[in-house]
């Protein structure tokens, strides 16, 4: 069960952690992704705050927190292989959050 933000991020809750990624629509719109700007483990962000960015050849798009939390893990594979987000945006998460509050999922779209 994935939740989607208006800014095209998805979030999936598993074992108390929140996996966050980019929607298929956004990955297609951006075109070939060339770089993912990842936050650092330990960084804390509020809901709707920008935590990173995705770059294609001609565009750069910020990534926004679907819910508040602390960065528990970043998908380091994306550092050398940003194209993974084009190949499978649903399988390749970007960051994992801890310290989350599930009630913040309320206003997101369930798909």
């Amino acid at each position: 069960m994935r939740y989607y933000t208006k800014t095209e991020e998805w979030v999936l809750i598993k074992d108390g952690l929140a996996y966050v990624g980019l929607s298929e629509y956004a990955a297609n719109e951006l075109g070939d992704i060339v770089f993912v700007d990842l936050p650092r483990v330990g960084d804390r962000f509020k809901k709707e705050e920008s935590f990173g960015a995705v770059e294609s050849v001609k565009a750069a798009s910020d990534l926004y927190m679907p819910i508040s939390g602390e960065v528990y893990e970043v998908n380091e594979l994306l550092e050398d292989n940003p194209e993974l987000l084009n190949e499978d945006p649903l399988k390749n998460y970007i960051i994992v959050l801890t310290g989350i509050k599930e009630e913040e999922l309320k206003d997101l779209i369930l798909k």
Partner: protein
Amino acid sequence: MRYDKIIFEISNEGQIGHDLYTKTNNLSKLPKNLKRSTRVNLPEVSEPMVVRHYTNLSNKNFGVDTGFYPLGSCTMKYNPKINEEMASLVHFAASHPLAPESANQGSLELMYETDLLLRDITGMDYFSLAPFAGAHGELLGLWIIKEYHRFRKDYKRNKIIIPDSAHGTNPASAAVAGFEILEVKSNADGTVNVDDLKTLLSDEVAGIMLTNPNTLGIFEKDILTISKLIHDCGGLLYYDGANLNALLGQGKPAHMGFDIVHLNVHKTLSAPHGGGGPGAGPVGVVKELFDFLPSPIVRKKGNKYQFYNPKKSVGKIGRFYGNFQVIAKTNAYIKTLGNENLSKVGGLAVLNANYIRKSLENEYKVAINDICMHEVVFDGLVDKSTGIKTLDVAKRLLDYGVHPPTVYFPLIVPEALMVEPTETESKETLDHFINVMKQISVEAKETPELLKEAPHHTLVRRLDEVSAARNPILKFDDIKEE
């Protein structure tokens, strides 16, 4: 045979291109711990080979001297060669920036004189010639706006209004200057929506950045209303001079209410673009802002020229005084044209642009259906059923020996093609361009693959920009053996 070498590939150990000779080895006295441990790896090439290499590289380029170069908002007009000669006069080339003023009266006079000429052209009261480029001028202008409000102890003013049609440097400059940006919407005709503007006004607005004509090549008809609104709410008006060419002889920014103006002399005033610089972005201000100009400016005392540091100056924005030789070229251009010709520039440039607009309106969708200024924006082909995009049209133009117009800007026109012919293009050149564009629109229907895979006749064809960004090779030593 096509020349295809990088300089390091023609390097040959022991070859030299210099004529320095010495038998001494005094550098050996410099302590070892301060010295390089290995010899610097620079190419070893003889003089004739260096000349041949760079001459061949120049043959892979296209300039205004080569052909029609209708880059919208770049004003690619003819770059007079007499200006090059004047800027490189030996007395200017040998002028040390830190020599006493009495030794540099010529350089100082040239700067002062250029200040006066630019004041006349724009109606502004004082100019600083220090900014190295338009974007640098923008940054300076925004800093001046900050200082102006700080000095009035009005610390709330941290917002700048920018139209959604603006060039990317405008919001970037505002962000670097430490402002928050408020975007104002455009009307269907591309001009600033005054009603939307009114909703953004408050005592937190430091000012507005505008270009006129705007990025769609349309004159801001409400400019006097806009300037009154901004001034009434306590803000300042900043003019991005990128499009000034349309207005030469038709109106001055100062009389539209602008408080700060930057010029792109490598656009409007014929200084060459140089492949991306050096340009210059002189900034003009109304007298109330004079004290904030960067240090130093040049003034005249009696019959002597001297440097002066304005009392509340924002400080130094470059190590010396700006791109002096570029300023010299600007000065030469203005004198060459004089009153009678400079005042005709706007009219001729605008006529050329409208001629293109009218001649192509059946094949290309004119973005704004009205008289345009010095540039015309098309929103791709009229017939979208072919699936041909602006990018394909641009790449196909290369096969016809024409430099494509600006593409995909402004952002509010999805398939934008921005054509700026300038006043130094003949009707013959425009007719050729028009015929080529018409031919391409026919090809779009009959042989679309030709366009999708264009260019075909250039030295290199479409380049893989994705892998260039994913796996950057940014220096010769990054190239892996294949």
